[in-house]
């Protein structure tokens, strides 16, 4: 098994075949650097002009026991010369760095798919950790696949021996770059971008930079010169809309979207947050941009994070707090306070598997009810959801716009899949971004803290520091107009309706939901949030087959777009795929009396295109 394949003396020219799209999954131990390897391949492919979509999939434990099944970390990437929207249903290629990685991921690999295996790690001990009774490399169980057994650990060591001053353990850490080098050759990718990254990243650790560089190139040359591979492949540039692009993850787009909202509104951003997976990257990203006047506050807990954001809003900043579902559960009382005090506030929920601690690193969409109805009392708030990583940017701007205009909390529902998934993002022109108007009152004449804008019903925004407008707000019921404490039954009934009406009126201010496909037909697939990619791809496939299927995707969930009822009425069946047990479909049924079909998948993984295709076919 540890035999090194020596380069042949004479080298036959190798075939180069063109493919439309490839899905690769890198899988290894959580310490093997699979996320890094996948990200490097993604960046290179993006800059090369492919359309890309990624799905990182890692355990909640930072370092589960080495070689164990729970410790397997994966990164799936789909790159294509066509417009794609998902990381691919099934990998065509699986890179397995150890037996556990093979065991966990093999069932997802397409029949006849390519397996690239680090054979050195298939030791007795590791096989046992992965609960293999016999060695799959030897027992014939992989015969349905194209298997490439490479002694990567040995080859890596050999490449570094006498080249760098490092311990064996340190040298061993470079082996993911060997695998990356092999894949770069196999899919005809240039190494430049990764070499540049290595030199920048390890500028202060030249030995590590050197080791990674040597190993990357050795892996590439090894694949090129040995006879392990006879063919390699190329994937041409994608035909996507012209413009300037960058690769972006949902969390990155969220962070810079809120900075953009700050620039567009002229109000500084205050971000109160407590570390939580998978939202922490937003805190990291925002804390790097203090030169935009961004104030990041890592609070002592979720409650302090939202309360400080509310205080910031009261003082005229954009009050923003970010977390995941369990954190929202803790914040809800304070969000109710912001509803009562009628202050702008944005709550980011990067949803993850629940309930309770649930599946911290996996995706889910089961916090829609929590956002819409999860507080005590009649406590309406605006709820919106981005649909792709790039859309996170635009919906962040939208959240702030609505929060200021309606003086209300706005929920922004991202999820783990959007947060960590990446896609090419067409960089917008700043002049195309919406204006965010924030008006503060200053005239004490006739000032009423709970007076109303006739159109939006928003109350005036009076900042502490403004002479003559001193007033008190709080969580006790407010008297209409004066904002004084008031327990009168009629006033309470009125104020409850007024707060609801204010949120309902935001429907006048949001775009109608668009139909992808015919305006009427047999099936409408209705979605929200991160299911956009799978739904749209599935519907597109069915439409190409001439089926009567359309789709519509909601970015505004409370209130709904005004035309939604009309859109739903144009179809015989409405199917709602959701990563929950049917939350949007319940809302649709209640609101429009439509017999919507809930299509649930709550596995911590996004929908595959084919799953949606199959479901829709049942109703055609």
């Amino acid at each position, binding site marked *: 098994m540890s035999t090194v394949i020596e380069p042949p003396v004479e080298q036959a020219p190798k075939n180069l075949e063109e493919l439309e799209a490839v899905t690769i999954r890198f899988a290894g131990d959580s310490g093997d650097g699979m996320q890094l390897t996948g990200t490097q391949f993604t960046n290179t492919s993006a800059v090369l002009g492919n359309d890309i979509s990624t799905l990182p999939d890692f355990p909640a434990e930072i370092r589960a026991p080495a070689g164990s099944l729970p410790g397997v970390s994966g990164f799936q990437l789909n790159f294509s010369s066509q417009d794609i929207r998902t990381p691919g249903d099934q990998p065509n290629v699986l890179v397995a760095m150890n037996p556990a990685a093979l065991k966990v991921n093999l069932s997802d690999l397409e029949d006849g798919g390519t397996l690239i295996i680090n054979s050195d790690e298939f030791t007795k001990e590791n096989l046992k950790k992965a609960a293999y009774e016999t060695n799959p490399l030897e027992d014939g169980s992989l015969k349905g696949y194209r298997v490439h057994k490479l002694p990567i650990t040995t080859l890596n060591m050999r490449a570094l021996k006498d080249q760098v001053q490092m311990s064996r353990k340190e040298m061993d850490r470079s082996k993911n770059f060997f695998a990356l080098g092999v894949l770069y050759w196999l899919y005809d990718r240039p190494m430049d971008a990764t070499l540049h990254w290595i030199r920048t990243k390890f500028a202060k650790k030249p030995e590590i930079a050197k080791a990674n560089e040597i190993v990357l190139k050795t892996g590439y040359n090894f694949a090129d010169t040995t006879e392990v591979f006879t063919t390699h492949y190329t994937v041409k540039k994608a035909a*996507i809309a012209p*413009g*300037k692009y*960058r690769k972006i993850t949902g969390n990155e787009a969220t962070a*810079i979207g809120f900075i953009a909202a700050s*620039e567009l509104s002229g109000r500084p951003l*205050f971000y109160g947050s407590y570390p939580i997976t998978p939202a922490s990257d937003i805190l990291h990203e925002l804390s790097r941009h*203090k*030169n*935009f006047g961004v*104030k990041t506050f890592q609070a*002592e807990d979720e409650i302090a994070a939202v*309360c*400080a954001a509310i*205080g910031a809003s009261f*003082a005229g*900043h954009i009050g923003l707090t970010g977390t995941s579902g369990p954190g929202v559960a803790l914040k809800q*009382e304070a969000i109710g*306070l912001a509803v009562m005090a009628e202050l702008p506030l944005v709550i980011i929920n990067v949803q993850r598997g629940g309930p309770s601690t649930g599946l911290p690193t996996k995706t889910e969409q089961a916090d829609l009810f929590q956002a819409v109805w999860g507080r005590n009392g009649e406590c309406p708030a605006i709820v919106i959801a981005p649909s792709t990583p790039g859309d996170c*940017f635009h919906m962040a701007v939208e959240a702030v716009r609505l929060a200021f205009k309606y003086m209300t909390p706005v929920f922004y529902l991202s999820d783990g899949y959007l947060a960590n998934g990446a896609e090419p993002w067409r*960089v917008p022109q*700043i002049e195309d971004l919406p204006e965010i108007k924030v008006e503060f*009152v*200053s*005239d004490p004449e006739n000032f*009423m803290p709970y*007076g109303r*804008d*006739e*159109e939006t019903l928003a109350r*005036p925004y009076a*900042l502490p*520091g*403004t002479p003559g407008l001193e007033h*008190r*707000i*709080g969580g*006790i019921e407010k008297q*209409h*107009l*004066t904002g*004084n*404490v*008031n327990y009168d039954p*009629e006033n309470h009934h*009125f104020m409850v*309706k007024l707060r609801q*009406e204010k949120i309902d*009126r935001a*429907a006048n201010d949001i775009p109608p939901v668009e139909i992808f496909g015919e305006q009427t037909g047999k099936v409408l697939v209705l979605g929200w949030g991160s299911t956009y990619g799978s739904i749209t791809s599935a519907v597109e496939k069915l439409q190409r087959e001439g089926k009567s299927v359309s789709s519509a995707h909601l970015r505004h969930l409370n*209130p*709904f777009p*005004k035309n*939604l*009822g*009309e859109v739903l*009425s144009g179809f015989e069946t409405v199917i709602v795929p959701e990563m929950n047990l049917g939350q949007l479909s319940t809302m649709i049924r209640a609101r*429009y009396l*439509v*017999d919507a079909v809930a299509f649930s998948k709550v596995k911590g993984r996004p929908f595959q295109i084919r799953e949606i295709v199959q479901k829709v076919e049942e109703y055609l």
Partner: protein
Amino acid sequence: MTTNGNGTNGNEHEKGEELLAEGQAMLDAGVEGITGNVSGSGPSPESEPGSVVAGEVAPPPAKLTKADFVSGQEVRWCPGCGDYAILNNVQKVMPELGIPREKIVFVSGIGCSSRFPYYMNTYGFHSIHGRAPAVATGIKASNPDLSVWVITGDGDALSIGGNHFIHAIRRNLDLNYILFNNRIYGLTKGQYSPTSEFGKNTKSTPMGVIDYPLNPLSVAIASEATFVARSIDIDVKHLGTMVEAAARHKGVSFVEVYQNCNIFNDHAFDHFAERTVRSERVLYLEHGKPMVFGKERDKGIRMNGAHPEVVKLGENGITEDDLLVHDIYLADPSVAFMLARMEYREGTDFPQPVGIFRAVERATYEDLMAGQIAASIAKQGAGSLEKLINSGDTWVVE
């Protein structure tokens, strides 16, 4: 498949107008408590507020008086409540600080004391239980120019809000933090609080409290408070001095006020605070002065090894020179902590200390935050959105 078209979303505007008309009718009918100010002279509610940039401010009135800080709201504490004295004192101190009214914000949580902001004619935010320090943190960090006050009680600060108490203090925001300690839950009608004495019989502890109380000053000092003081509601003059000193301290200023709840925990502090015994049993800490107390000013605090002891002046040749001299500026908080633990109890000699325990300087959170922003701008230049969205590896599709 049936749908009802536009659903219930159809006629928002008409519905809204009806709603507003209803609000107006309600006002016209004279809903209880609505003041003349909104007696309903016009057909519609407030028109759109003028759009003026905040910060275009008129100069503050030349000289403010106590009356300027009294809001129009009817004060609704029980007659005889210690809160009245504290309110009165704070309103009296405010004009002395020379801060324009509009730059003052009172923030509170939940409980009797937390109604305080409604009675101050300043900006105010009556937030939720225990969270006032967090709300105040956001306000102060966003606008350091404001004078921000946190009003809280023993349940609000130390029970439900214990976490925020610790962390707001250790961050050293320039907040004035006044804790009304009545050792009971008043608003919920008489359950024990985290400062209630061990063994106390209350509504929720008919057989006596079995958890040990905590000492607010100990926690504040352990949380690295830069200013710590204590006073008594009925000791009006002393209380005013403490409130003013707290306001003038830059950094977090924590003041515990012993406050009598005459309904659910009456006479809680009488054993040392009652007028006839106070001078005998209360130690008034004064910076730079030896720790002397007693009606005849004949007793003092001396260190005996690592422990304080009460000594009698003139006995065994003891003079004031032997006594501990109070120093509020000590960097080491040990002495302040020791004093915070001292208490008057029947059968012991020790007095109950009040006054400023500690006042040290340390950079405030909001200044450090502003400093990092300034440093970041100096290093990277003011943020450019154009640059930001175009950062990272980009490529052009023709």
